[in-house]
Structures are given as C-alpha cells and as structure tokens.
C-alpha cells in the first residue's frame, strides 16, 4: 500500500469510477504513505507479540497435558482443590511461574525465552518503561523454537498456525 501511495497513486485513472469512490477519492499519496509507515513501524513488535502468544499458549497446553497424564485417581477434596488451583495457575497464571520449574532442566533456554517475554511485556504494556533488550521477529522465533521442538506435535502446530495465518 505504501508503494502504491508513493509511486502510483497519482497516476491511477481517477476520471472513472475510482474518482467517484467516497473512500478513495479524498486519499492523498502523502496520507497513504504516512499511514502505511505508521502500521509498518509497529509490525515487527506485533509479530514478536504474536509469536510469543502462540508459544505461551502451546507451552501452557503442553504442561497441563503432561501434568494430567501423571495424575493418579484422586478422591480427597483437599487434594482435588489444590490440584484445581495448580491447573488454574498453569492455564491462566503467571507464565514466568509456569516456566520456572524448567530452569532445573535447561536454565539457559528458559532465560532466552524470558528475555523475549520481557520484550513482549514491554510492547504489550505500551512501551512506558525503559526498553529491555530489543528483539526482532527472527530472533524471537529462533529463541522460542527450541522450547517447542522438545515436543514435535507442538512445533508442528506452531508452524501450521504461522503459515496459515492463524496466529493469535
């Protein structure tokens, strides 16, 4: 759209139906260019945000499935209540806490994920505080991928969502 605004907008055949279109006739080349730049400026950060959202959802789902697979039949109400609270925490609680136990396995990997998480949080909360270490989409993907690859079904699902435009 930016390229259209920058290079071709004024050369379009405005004498016909295009010139009578209420949405298009008042748009200017400069306006289109400005708007497209505004959108594109934030696109990288939006991509990091979406990548992390998919990653977070996949990890929560996976942890919950793994936990449920290990549970014996439970009957005591106190244990059942504690378990429900734990599952609620995995599904909707702090993602930092969900990842925390995995530091025992691969602290470096979890720290790499947490660095992306900090940048995502900074973007999601309106960039109001000091910028943490900057993350571009390629780096975000390369840092989140190893965590997902530990479970092939999840990496397959992530790829599917990314390539079908179903992110988020």
């Amino acid at each position, binding site marked *: 759209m930016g390229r259209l605004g920058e290079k071709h907008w004024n050369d379009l055949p405005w004498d016909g139906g295009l010139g009578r279109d209420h949405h298009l006739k008042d748009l200017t080349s400069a306006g289109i260019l400005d708007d497209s730049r505004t959108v594109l400026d934030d696109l990288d950060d939006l991509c990091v945000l979406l990548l992390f959202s998919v990653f977070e959802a996949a990890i929560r789902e996976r942890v919950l499935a793994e936990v449920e697979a290990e549970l014996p039949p439970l009957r005591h109400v106190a244990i059942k209540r504690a378990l429900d609270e734990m599952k609620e925490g995995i599904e909707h609680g702090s993602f930092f806490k969900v990842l925390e136990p995995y530091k025992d396995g691969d602290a470096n990997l979890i720290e790499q994920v947490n660095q992306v998480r900090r940048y995502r949080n900074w973007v999601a909360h309106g960039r109001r505080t000091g910028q943490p*270490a*900057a993350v571009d989409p390629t780096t975000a993907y390369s840092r989140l991928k190893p965590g997902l690859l530990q479970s092939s079904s999840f990496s397959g699902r992530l790829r599917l969502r990314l390539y079908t435009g179903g992110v988020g």
Partner: protein
Amino acid sequence: MTLREFLLKNAPREEVSRRRCREEWIAAIDRLLAQLRAWLTDTGTAELLDLEPLEFEKREQGLGAYHVKGLAINFGERTVKVVPVGRLVLAHLGPYAEAGHENAEGRVDITNGAYKYFLYRKLTDAGEQWLIQDERAGIRPLDRDQFEAVLQALLS
C-alpha cells in the same frame, strides 16, 4: 560539601555504569553515522541526496534516558532512515560470533518504512564491527558496497 561533591559521593554505582554504557553507545552511533556519510561523500553520491540529521529520545533498561542521533537520506520524495534501536539487543551474530562475543552489542535499522535492514554491532577486544542482515540474506559485514546496495534497494 557542594552539590557536585554530594552527587559524586552518593551516585549509585549503577548510575556510573549506566552513564558509561550510554556514552559509549552514543559515541558508537556517531561513528557509524560519520562512516555512512563518508561513504556517500567518497562516492560522490552525497551531493545528489539530501542528508538530514535526526534525533531520537530513547529510554533503555541499564542505560536510562538519552538522546541519540539518526540520519534521514532523502532522494526526491523517497526517504531512507537510519534509526538507532538499542544498545541492548537479543541477536546472535551467526557465523561472525566468537567465544564471549556471540551476541550483538547494539542494533541500528536502515528502513524506507516498508523494508528494513538490521545493522548489528559486534564488539570485541579488537574493536567494533558493524554487520548487516535482512530477511533475504544472511548476516554479513557492512561495507561501502553493501551500504550502497542497500540504499539503492530502499530508494528504488
């Protein structure tokens, strides 16, 4: 005790470190911009372009608030901007990584608004080097030929 003496005595150690880091980064950006300008001048292209200094207000964890320069390269109605992104950056240097220097020590973007090239700074005991990367090509050293090719692509 004067105010200056008081501030010097009570300045938190982190503030000294923050300031040093900030000044080092701002100086690195100034060197990069001077290099880019020099390349344009050397090849006689600077006179065909309108070079406009930019200034950005940044706030980074570990550095605090600071002002840093950028550059707008105008050619007719087209503009390419050189925009400092941050001193702290998560980016692996790929084949240019060395032990203890695996990650970039700063990032600057060159963009026309639609397409973007990332400049990553590699910092070692031997000095600093700028590398360039984009979606289409892997990371490689930034030199005059690369810079000219990037400008031509972004201005076309």
